[in-house]
């Protein structure tokens, strides 16, 4: 049975459409990440599930119960905010105990004590329980904030970019920890982020939002390999996907309607004798990987190679796209499924759409 189901949910703020006809089901124990740029409606979706906003249209169900019109307190959800999540006038212990002392959910003092200590151990903040909330470092604060959600066992945990205000190292640590805790507890989580790395590593399924619409939902690998449109392709993967006009880079097998070809940096192969002529513009050694910036047919291309790739700046080489790895998009930006279906019907591959190779299109790839 799905834990949470949104059906055709729409939310407007004055005249702006924040969430538009959104449908999504989250299964029990599933970790779903909503990914999208600022203003895509990610946070609004979370707030709708929490009951902090009321939708104009649509239905929200939690545990099979229609909660569309109920208050947050009646919904049995937890919310971790991006910041400001700790009460500055309480100690860490009181902050963690706060949800357990809520009227209607009030637990006996001994149980609260035990529960808070258990969570504090889980998050490794047991030595800080007596501190005031304001006497913590940023990482500790955020761990307490997550802990405040974990002391309860709600139907679903809602997390709004809980790691975004932390530095990179801490973010990585907490990301791993969060995934571990989620697995251990079997918790159902709806998580919002604009960081594609967080989405890829944490999610069982990713939902990509753009302008209030859910563009694609699927397993991280699936969304990465088979994005529905250019926007989704660009949102996942670092370094970003190369988007070049159709007919370039010697990609011969392509559907007729394709105007843009997407090539992941790891699918650009160097030193191919039968490839297209290219010049190396820049080389960045990232450790295990090497990022190479290439100039091909007036386009700039990113290629991701192994750590010890023998490339030098200014070097002339020939490149090719890994066979079958290219993604094709039509003029409206939607991906054309199955390149093999279209290509035989086209007359000459060269005449596909040569005019699109303009300078402005080339800027896509940079």
């Amino acid at each position, binding site marked *: 049975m799905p834990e949470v189901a949104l059906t055709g949910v729409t939310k407007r703020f004055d005249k702006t459409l924040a969430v538009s006809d959104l449908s999504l089901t989250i299964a029990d124990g599933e970790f779903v990440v909503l990914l999208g740029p600022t203003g895509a409606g990610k946070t609004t979706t979370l707030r709708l599930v*929490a*009951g*902090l906003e009321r939708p104009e249209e649509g239905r929200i169900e939690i545990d099979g119960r229609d909660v569309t019109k109920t*208050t*947050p*307190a009646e*919904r049995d*959800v*937890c*919310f971790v*905010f991006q*910041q*400001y*999540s700790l*009460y*500055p*006038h309480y100690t860490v212990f009181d902050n963690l105990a*706060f*949800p357990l002392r*809520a*009227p*209607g*959910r009030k637990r006996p003092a001994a149980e609260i004590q035990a529960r808070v200590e258990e969570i504090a151990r889980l998050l490794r903040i047991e030595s800080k329980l007596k501190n005031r909330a*304001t006497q913590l470092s940023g990482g500790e604060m955020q761990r307490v904030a997550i802990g*405040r959600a974990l002391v*309860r066992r709600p139907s679903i945990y809602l997390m709004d970019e809980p790691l975004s205000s932390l530095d990179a190292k801490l973010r990585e640590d907490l990301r791993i920890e969060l995934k571990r805790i989620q697995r251990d507890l079997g918790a159902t989580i709806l998580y919002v982020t604009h960081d594609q790395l967080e989405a890829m590593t944490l999610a069982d399924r990713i939902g990509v939002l753009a302008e209030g619409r859910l563009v694609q939902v699927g397993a991280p690998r699936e969304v990465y390999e088979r994005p529905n449109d250019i926007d989704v392709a660009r949102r996942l993967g670092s370094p970003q996907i190369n988007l070049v006009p159709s007919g370039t880079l010697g990609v011969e097998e392509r559907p007729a309607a394709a105007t843009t070809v997407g090539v992941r940096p790891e699918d650009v192969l160097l030193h191919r004798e039968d490839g297209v002529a290219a010049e190396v513009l820049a080389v960045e050694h990232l450790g295990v990987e090497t990022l190479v910036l290439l100039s091909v047919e007036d386009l700039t291309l990113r290629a991701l190679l192994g750590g010890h790739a023998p490339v030098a700046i200014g070097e002339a080489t020939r490149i090719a796209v890994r066979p079958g790895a290219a993604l094709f998009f039509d003029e409206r930006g939607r991906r054309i499924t199955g390149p093999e279906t279209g290509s035989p019907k086209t007359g000459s591959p060269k005449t596909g759409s040569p005019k699109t190779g303009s300078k402005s299109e080339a800027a896509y790839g940079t």
Partner: protein
Amino acid sequence: MSAKSTAHSVVEASSGGKWLAGGLVVVYALVTMIPLVWIFLTGFKSPPDSISYPPKVFFEPSMEGYVNLFTTRTRQTSEYIESLGPPETWYDEIVRKRNMVIAGPSKFADRYLNSIVIGFGSTFLAVFLGTLAAYGFSRFKVPLKDDLLFFILSTRMMPPIAVAIPIYLMYRTLGLSDTALGMILLYTAVNISLAVWLLKGFIDEIPREYEEAAVVDGYSRLQAFWKVVLPQARTGIAATAIFCLIFAWNEYAFVLLLTSGEAQTAPPYIPLIIGEGGLDWPAVAAGTTLFLLPIVFFTVVLRNQLLRGITFGAVRK
């Protein structure tokens, strides 16, 4: 700062500058303190000392001012006073030196009590209503919010005494003249605009996420307000309360106009304490000293809250 330090920080004042600034503050404080010190000293002078010329800085302290403040006295012949026998108390002794006997208590204690009831009562009401109103304006979609806030502020745009006559007539009709309730309502009405505007600023600074977190955790909005908003608005509430109290405590014009006996507060009473041959200056000074004490006391008690009120917003975000 160490004595050896020669580096000049852009943000930190040099030690010479600090001394100069500190010195100026001390001098200014002393200058403003002089009238207060003079009032305090006059309260312990005898009536002749209090009006002597040149003014006496050194004098023999006397409790006569305080005794006169709290009592009414009648002049008697020395034969009558001798017939009473030796004085029973120290204040009898002071009074009899002037050929007088104590006839009864003065009205000062009553007036002082009125000041406390009206001052604190109106402060409590203004802060209580102001906090709720400020929270409403800060958090809810109120129709015509800006106009309402402007309307509340506009009650401050004229001197309150400009509406004295309408209020006088209104109070006479309603039977609120010369009642403590009437004065409490009046001061609350004057103070509430200040309270709403000050507190709205403080509550706006408290992020909504706190209440939202509490609401999601199973608290009602009112409980969230009580448990989460109020504790964080404490400094603002303290600062607002002090300002309201100072206004209500010092108010003179309305109370002079609207009260005649029952509900009169201390301000119109103190300057009219008549003694032998005119104003009884030591008693007036004694009354003023006692009148100042509660405000001094509360400002000192709440000084940390007031300081934090000024630095509000410097919290980690």
